[in-house]
């Protein structure tokens, strides 16, 4: 019982150290472009990300993303720009809006539900 708790403490502390470290890491332009284009769909390909694709469409979007970042636009603004033109279909990571809240909430609903279930069973024993 006690040892299990110490696992948890060790794990959680280490995890938070990591999290705090990553915030300080500054990202270069190319890294930003890579991160964003990995989350975008190449509309002319079969389920391929723009980053991975060498299609003409993908190369155009890569250029546009790069120039928008250079203009100082944020990732969110660039996504918004693309969604206005190509629809949410272009985003591999669905936006958190009224359509998709269930998609994002679902795993957490299940987790919370099963957490209750487990603690109930343990208490019963």
């Amino acid at each position, binding site marked *: *019982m006690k*040892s*299990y708790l*110490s*696992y948890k403490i*060790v*794990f959680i502390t*280490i*995890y938070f*150290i*990591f*999290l705090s*470290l*990553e915030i300080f*890491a500054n990202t270069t332009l190319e890294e930003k472009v890579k991160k964003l284009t*990995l*989350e975008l*769909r190449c509309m002319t*390909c*079969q*389920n*391929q*990300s723009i980053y*991975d*694709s*060498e299609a003409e469409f993908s190369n155009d979007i890569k250029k546009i993303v790069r120039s928008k970042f250079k203009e100082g636009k944020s990732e969110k603004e660039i996504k918004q720009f693309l969604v206005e033109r190509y*629809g*949410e*279909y*272009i*985003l*591999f*990571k*669905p936006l958190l809006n009224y*359509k*998709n809240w269930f*998609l*994002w909430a*679902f*795993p957490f609903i*299940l*987790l919370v539900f*099963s957490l209750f*279930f*487990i603690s109930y*069973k*343990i208490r*019963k*024993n």
Partner: protein
Amino acid sequence: MSSLIGFASLVLAILFNAYLIFSNFFIKNNGKVFNLFIRTSSVLTIISFFSLMFAYVVSDFSNFNVFQNSHSEKPLIYKISGTWGNHEGSMLLWVSILSIYGLLFSFTKNIDLKFKQETLLIQSSIHILFGLFIIFTSNPFLINSVIVEEGLGLNPILQDPGLAVHPPILYAGYVGYSIVFSQAIASLLNHNKNKDWISVAKKWSLISWTFLTAGIALGSYWAYYELGWGGWWFWDPVENISLMPWIAGLALVHSLLMAKGEQLLKKWIIFLSILCFSLSIFGTFLVRSGILTSVHSFASDASRGLFILLIFFIITGFGFLIFLLKTPESSKPINFLFINKASALVINNILMIIATLTILLGTIYPIIVEVLTNDRISVGGPYFNSTVIPIMIPGFLLMSIAPILSWQTNKVRNARLYVLGFVVISFIVLIQSYFSTFNTWGVLGLILGIWIILASCISIISSSKINYDFKLLQKINPYIAHIGVGVAIIGITCSSVFKNEYELNINEGDKFQIENTMISLEKIEMTNEINFQALRANFLIEKNKKIVARIKAGKNYYPVSKMITTEAGIFHQWYRDIYFIVGDQKDNNWFVKVYINPFVSFIWVGVLIMVLSGFIGISKR
């Protein structure tokens, strides 16, 4: 001629099965007659499959399916594998494997006769449904209305050794769950009187899971070298579909383990058995109906989709209805303590099911949204990475300590040793990561992977005595499987987080240096092969001025289908892959992309260990 034999034997097989089911309502067949019918129908289905294969091998273009998907100039191996390289043929393979499972199960001894027969009857019903599907919507034995000399050729991406092994093994996994499903339903119908099925189900679910694991890994490896963008997993719908029954099957294998601890979760096991097969059929439906876009090529047709949807609805609906009507009464309450083996297994099961359901929702959510709002959205890799992986991580943590937990008490054996091990590993990885690129997921994955391996090794050492024989191997088998998982986690983490890529524009004779390795582009050559033209760039890899390897990468052009495929060149080392892709020529220079994939081979090795452990588990008496 072979088409006729094939079609006739398929129809006969269905008739045999239909008669068997029909007659079973009126007369009690004795065991021998029953077995004869089952086996005849199975053999007939297999004959049907082989006659299609024969038509492919001899390039019998009077068969419409062969005409559409084959070409006489193809090498023999692709003629054989071309049998299942198309929708019709692959469905016939599906049904043939279904028959093989029925055939094998009919030879099982020492189980209750009634249970066995009912299992086989359910298996036959599934056979009839899919047999009718083949005959009415995807008949591979149609006769070509015109006489032709030459076929249209096979999709170039499918002209690969991958096609020869990946689908049959994957199907052996998917379809294997049919027998688990049938057993679960039969045991429900039998009012759960016998406990036979637990040990039987253990074996068959492990067989299916092992094949499914091997099949998925082969497919992943195939995509890795064929698609040519350096990745091996894309969270593509087709991949998700195979992952769902795999995770559910893993949960099933683990919950069947609990039967060993005298703590039977019968309801849960039956639910999982039904779920696994349902997910398998649902996967077949999604792939075959073509309602999803995928990087993996498939022959699809929406009209067939309706038929498979109907079959999916009938089988799954029937399964869950029986489950509802004949719910097994609650067995002994499980010994559920704060931290013991039982609770660890239950928690892991729950996590696996949450992961499965999340993947399921993510895969079909675009369909739901489009039906409701007429808007189209994508649910891709980023969604699954940020939901499924965090869900699985506590599971991996539990997995690594599971071996030291006991069934009955709250005590943890050798707890101090394990805590110490975990802390030491964490610090080593953390320090190491400071000197290389830092990444939260990378560090987390490495710690988990190494710790799982180490904890399993400690468990093996502390549990084994000196006599090294096969029995010992079976005893430590779960740890072997877990070591495989650990190895795979390290491979997955490193190859996805620490992957590097370099883009170059170079000409023949140019040299460049990538991570301590000198690479030169020797020459570019064009050759004419039997059924394609090949462009190959020859790379020379040197280290310390010694030639290490020569790698060819390039593209193939298939004139018959006017398609170009990328042929990646991969230099395998145990700790990394150097992955070459050649693009287009621009201003006398060739565009070359080089990926450095660290520890990617660990994924395949890890999976191999899991598969081996699966086979050891199957051979257990």
